[in-house]
């Protein structure tokens, strides 16, 4: 415990505390002091997290529109929730989101782990390669969205030319962003390109955390590399892989910026993920009550799924 009764001035780290302050603090208990220190954080959290959440829940039961602040607000009960959950367009958007989340997570996990496995073998120049691989992750989604729009351009886009070179189909014979079948895959490809390095980093941390002596013991027991991978590497890196899946799953469930830039949800509604539907309802149609209800439904979905997943993750970690 610090001596607060020192005669003149006391220095805590870089902060100089004057005697009057010291006298005031001296009268406080440890608990009161703890409260004093955490109160600003609590207030901030309440103001920017909890209050908006409660307010959104309230609005979701009303017909409030942010663009008509003077209009009377009517209590609608669970009307919006019923409307949303029975709306085929909403279910279509949820299906698009599920497709996007599933495939991006699968591809990013497989590729990310594969890259991490390679990078973990400290070959010559692996530092440079790591930096190069990490580059896409460092770019802004706005930049990525824009330049992939150019890459996918059927007449001048590099992507189409590469595909044309490999398959023999003319470059302008297909359009990644304008085709109903290809566009859901176009956004998956871009997300995988951008975020696989992130999964790789987490997996790399997992691989580097495996002690060498375990492999040495396995070598002594004449375990093959294949056996070592399945019995040591994968099980010990699994909690990290699962963590990466969790992060990417949550992030991609909320995906907006990149898809908005690449396709705007089109063609038609083929790539309209849930967050684009939500944005349109909230800030284009100004159906604030409706969009609040939709936001709550999305929140509960992500929160529920993430909780189930975290329990599974904890079970894996405790094995």
């Amino acid at each position, binding site marked *: 415990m610090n001596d607060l009764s020192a005669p003149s001035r006391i220095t805590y780290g870089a902060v100089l505390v004057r005697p009057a302050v010291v006298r005031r603090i001296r009268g406080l208990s440890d608990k009161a002091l703890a409260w004093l220190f955490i109160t600003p954080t609590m207030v901030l959290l309440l103001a920017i997290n909890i209050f908006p959440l409660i307010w959104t829940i309230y609005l979701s039961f009303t017909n409030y529109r*942010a*663009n*008509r*602040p*003077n209009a009377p607000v009517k209590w609608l009960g669970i009307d919006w929730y019923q409307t949303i959950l029975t709306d085929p*367009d909403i279910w279509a958007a949820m299906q698009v989101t599920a497709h996007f989340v599933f495939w991006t997570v699968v591809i990013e996990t497989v590729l990310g782990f594969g890259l991490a496995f390679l990078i973990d073998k400290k070959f010559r120049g692996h530092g440079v390669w790591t930096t190069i691989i990490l580059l896409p992750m460092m770019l802004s989604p706005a930049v990525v969205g824009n330049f992939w729009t150019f890459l*996918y*351009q*059927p*007449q001048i*886009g590099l992507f189409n030319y590469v595909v044309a070179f490999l398959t023999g189909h003319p470059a*302008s*014979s297909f*359009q990644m*962003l*304008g*085709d*109903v079948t290809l566009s859901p895959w176009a956004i998956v490809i871009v997300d995988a390109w951008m975020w696989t390095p992130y999964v790789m980093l987490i997996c790399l941390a997992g691989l580097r955390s495996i002690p060498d002596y375990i492999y040495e013991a396995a070598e002594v027991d004449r375990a093959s590399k294949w056996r070592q991978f399945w019995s040591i590497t994968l099980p010990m890196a699994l909690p990290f892989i699962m963590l990466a899946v969790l992060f990417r799953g949550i992030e991609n469930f909320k995906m907006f910026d990149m898809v*908005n830039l690449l*396709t*705007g*949800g*089109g*063609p*038609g*509604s*083929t790539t309209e993920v849930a967050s684009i539907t939500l944005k*349109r309802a909230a*800030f*284009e*149609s*100004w*159906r604030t009550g409706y969009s609040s209800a939709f936001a709550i439904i999305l929140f509960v979905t992500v929160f529920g799924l993430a909780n189930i997943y975290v329990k599974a993750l904890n079970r894996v970690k405790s094995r």
Partner: protein
Amino acid sequence: MNISIKALFAAGGALAVGIGAATTPAHAQGKTITLCWAAWDPANALVELSKDFTAKTGIGMKFEFVPWTNYADRFLNELNSRGSLCDLIIGDSQWIGGAAENGQYVKLNDFFKKEGISMDDYMPATVVGYSQWPKNTPNYWALPAMGDAVGWTYRKDWFARPDAQKDFKAKYDRDLAVPKTLDELRDIAKFFQGREIDGKKVYGASIYTERGSEGITMGVSNYLYDYGFKYQDPNKPYAMDGFVNSPGAVKGLEAYKELYKCCTPPGASNSYMSEGLDAFKSGQVALQMNFFAFFPGLYKDPNVGGDKIGFFSNPAATTQATQLGGQGISVVSYSKNQGEALQYIKWFSGGDVQKKWWALGGYSCAKSVLNDPGFPDSAPFSKEFLKSMGMVVDFWAEPSYAQLLQAEQKRVHDYVVADKGTAQEALDGLVKDWKAIFKEEGKKF
């Protein structure tokens, strides 16, 4: 060291003051007002024009221009959050209902009366489209500022090529000329699609297909109107069955899809104004659908302008109409500089200012400019502009316009670009969506 730092600060301060003094014009003593609009060619003309206002009144002008794709998002957010960024706003025609009913624009009736500004001095379509709410009533919320409509440009030099003339005649048994009907337009677009011109593969037409904001609606409307689509029963407001989804409207939607499928460049599934300009300027397409506002700039283009470009208004089908563009200028009710903003509107309504506005590349809505005997020949596109302004139709301008627009964007894009369902199903679905929106608004029909 200390001295040198002090000296540095002093010099910096003096420099800052000096720069400030050097760059601050005489109007620094007066107020500065901010005008919000879209970032496009006419906005540059307005910056030029507004210099006269500053010179005359001493009121400085600041401009907030936002690209079209974010224009509605940005400024409707600003208005809805009661922001005072904009003192004056050149808001889209469809905003007028919401802005008037939500108290975002200042009503201008008393001001017009006081200043002797008469709406009879402006082209009727622009008064109804840009200024009145409710429509066709003498309640004014804006001064018609920028007349606009959808029109077409074509490659005059390609049309004039003897080989093209000969091939077209052989195929369609008529001369390759400016299309008078939408069927003729489709034939021309088909004719050019994939054709080699000077060793380069070219395409038929660039049309609006954009999904995110208003693009495909602004494009398809030109076809729907021409085939008899109406927003509602003229005798029974909000009654849409048989008008929005009439057999004619279905045909119009099918025709638009046919044009998109047969005759647009690859990758044109999300095109709007700027993509159309790019396609035309880069010599990719023979025909381009776009707003007249861009035509002065296109005419001046060194590669495709001058003798190489021609202009025509939207061709006919069973009838002839075109989509209204353009905007009125309004005073934002949250502005702290309403007096100065009104001064600007008064100045802008002046006859000489309107003439200069047209000369600089803006489209005046004043009769004094448009009815001038010399107007039709004042630019290669002015005759077609006049013709178009005489047959314009606008989208809903209801307070719920954004929701109505989104519904059409989705239904039409799903059918035209994503090949979902039939035209009849798309328009029936649109009626269903619009009815639900109006019902939520408490409208009776």
